[in-house]
């Protein structure tokens, strides 16, 4: 069974802090994704990665960066946290082929005070 693990379920930080969200998958997936989930907006893609050290911007990359130094780990970084980044963050991973589903972690509920 695919396991996507996000390091924290709940996180509270202050504005201006640098915040790291970690995600690890155990299925040797090439693709990894970071989304934020907001009521009424669904899931919006922040960044994704299709290989180690490779990254591509999603639909809402502003204020975020990512790091993928190892295949199994994909980190999301909020360079200087702001209150409008308070949200639920979801990590996902998948194989690259057609019709490959994405597998999601439990999510990290991040509050920026």
């Amino acid at each position, binding site marked *: 069974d695919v396991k996507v693990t996000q390091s924290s379920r709940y996180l509270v930080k202050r504005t201006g802090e640098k915040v790291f969200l970690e995600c690890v998958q155990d299925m040797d997936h090439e*693709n990894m994704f970071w989304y934020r989930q907001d009521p009424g907006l669904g899931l919006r893609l922040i960044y994704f990665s299709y290989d180690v050290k490779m990254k*591509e911007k999603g639909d809402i990359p502003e204020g975020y960066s990512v790091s993928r130094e190892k295949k199994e780990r994909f980190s999301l970084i909020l360079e200087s946290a702001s209150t409008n980044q308070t949200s639920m963050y979801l990590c996902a991973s998948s194989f690259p082929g057609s019709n490959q589903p994405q597998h*999601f972690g439990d999510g990290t509920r991040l509050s920026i005070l």
Partner: protein
Amino acid sequence: AQRVTQPEKLLSVFKGAPVELKCNYSYSGSPELFWYVQYSRQRLQLLLRHISRESIKGFTADLNKGETSFHLKKPFAQEEDSAMYYCALRTTDSWGKLQFGAGTQVVVTP
């Protein structure tokens, strides 16, 4: 640009009644469509995909390319179907990225 529209934010149905969640997409190529579900306090998980043409937990969805729709249906709703449902589109040139709709909250009342 690709887009997925789920027009209903909330669907409230009685147990045993039919339920249909609407999903429309815009994409000029050959799409891959998925339905994901998130039960209370659980992670988002795949419910079904159009390529499989299968029924999962009594749900079915048919891809209608003419109407660019992928509606999710179940003839008899159960209380355990209460959840948030997301329709998602994957395009062939998207590196596996998914475009999600805004989601539909389904509440099944006894």
